[in-house]
């Protein structure tokens, strides 16, 4: 299997290093716990916010605001839902509100430059990122969000459905439609598909 198992397994948040435990410790003012949460969700949440606002600077601001909200909410946090759902929901609400206020401003696809280490691995990550950013940018918002939540944030469909407030089948359908649309522009990165099959 190409992907890690969905993080929906019941044990992932229960241990001493689980998300819930970290969040509860955050609520008690534990700075280290907050830092750990931040580290865990940094890239996934940022990618998700970018998939909505599609501007690097705005996404960074909203990412910070998301974690400030999390920090403020931590003392009152009751672990009813999965923390990943909670975090993505906060991020989504902030990002959608932001987009609503800033509607119609033309946006450039967010492209993350490859690091020197990545470039040294022989993977044309810059090209992949540029192509992917452009292709994602052309997708309808629901498809872009669903794909990012599934493959970047690695949320199971059930959780994506909760975050996006849509039925699970609909979410999977958005993912499928989106991937189909991405397919032609991603074909040139075939070697990665070959790697997967080894």
């Amino acid at each position, binding site marked *: 299997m190409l992907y890690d198992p969905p993080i929906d397994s019941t044990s992932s948040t229960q241990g001493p290093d689980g998300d819930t435990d970290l969040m509860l410790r955050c609520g008690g003012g534990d700075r280290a716990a907050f830092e750990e949460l931040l580290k865990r969700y940094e890239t996934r949440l940022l990618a998700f916010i970018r998939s909505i606002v599609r501007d690097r600077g705005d996404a960074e601001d909203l990412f910070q605001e998301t974690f400030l909200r999390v920090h403020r909410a931590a003392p009152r946090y009751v672990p009813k839902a999965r923390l990943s759902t909670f975090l993505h929901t906060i991020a989504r609400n902030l990002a959608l509100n932001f987009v609503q206020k800033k509607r119609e401003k033309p946006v450039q696809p967010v492209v*993350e430059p490859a690091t020197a280490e990545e470039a040294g691995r022989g993977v044309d990550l810059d090209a992949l990122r540029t192509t992917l950013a452009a292709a994602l940018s052309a997708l309808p918002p629901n498809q872009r969000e669903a794909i990012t939540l599934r*493959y970047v944030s690695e949320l199971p469909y059930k959780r994506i459905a909760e975050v996006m407030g849509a039925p699970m089948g609909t979410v999977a359908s958005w993912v499928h439609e989106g991937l189909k649309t991405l397919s032609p522009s991603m074909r040139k990165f075939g070697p990665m598909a070959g790697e997967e099959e080894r």
Partner: protein
Amino acid sequence: MSHPVTPVQLLLHDAGELDAAEARAVSLHAAGCAECAAQLAELRTLGALVAKGGLPEPQVLRRQRVIAAAFGVSHRRIAWGLALAVAAALLFAVGRAWWPAGRTVPPKPANPWVARHHEALQRLDRRPVELARGPGEPGAGIGSAPIGPEPGDAARAAVAKWEAIAGVRALYPARVPEGMRFRQARVAGDAVEVTFAGGGKSFTVFAGAGDGVERVEGTVVAGTAAGLRFVIVGEGLGAADLKLIRESLERPAPK
């Protein structure tokens, strides 16, 4: 060609999110269907590419910024604090300018008894005591003779009049510091406040201080005279002044 399994089912099956019966049906079909297997492979590959190309780089600086914002004092808070401080200073300045000339705020005593006494005087109508009434008149009887450094007969007589007020004995020291004069006496209920002033200095004697009132550090000094305790609240007094007052108070009350 129509399939019993949809691409959405393939995706959900691949994610392990189909219920057992549906998952079994999809598995059975996909195992023998090259088209579905190819489609699933393509979807997986695309998903992997998205995962690879869609993940931004983690940045220590980014995290540090968030942590600083969450745990540090924000610039906005500092700005608000400064604005409030400036507003408070302005209010204070305006208040002082507006405060009528000559109206003084009594010093706030540290001693609890003196504090209560102060409160009583503030709460009740602090009527200036009319001076120079006849001895023994109720509620007054306070002599008007200025009290100099060495009180003469007039001052001694005034003391006697003061003592005519029930519960009040020897309200002021037999001697006051050089250059100071009796300024005013005010009563409110059974509380009496006598102020002496002069040369930019003043001190106030609260009569009737109960047992247990001892010397209080700072501007409040307690002394005794003939068994009666006094509490003095002074303004602008130096250590020499306080010493003199204390010595005066410790003298036996004039007879």
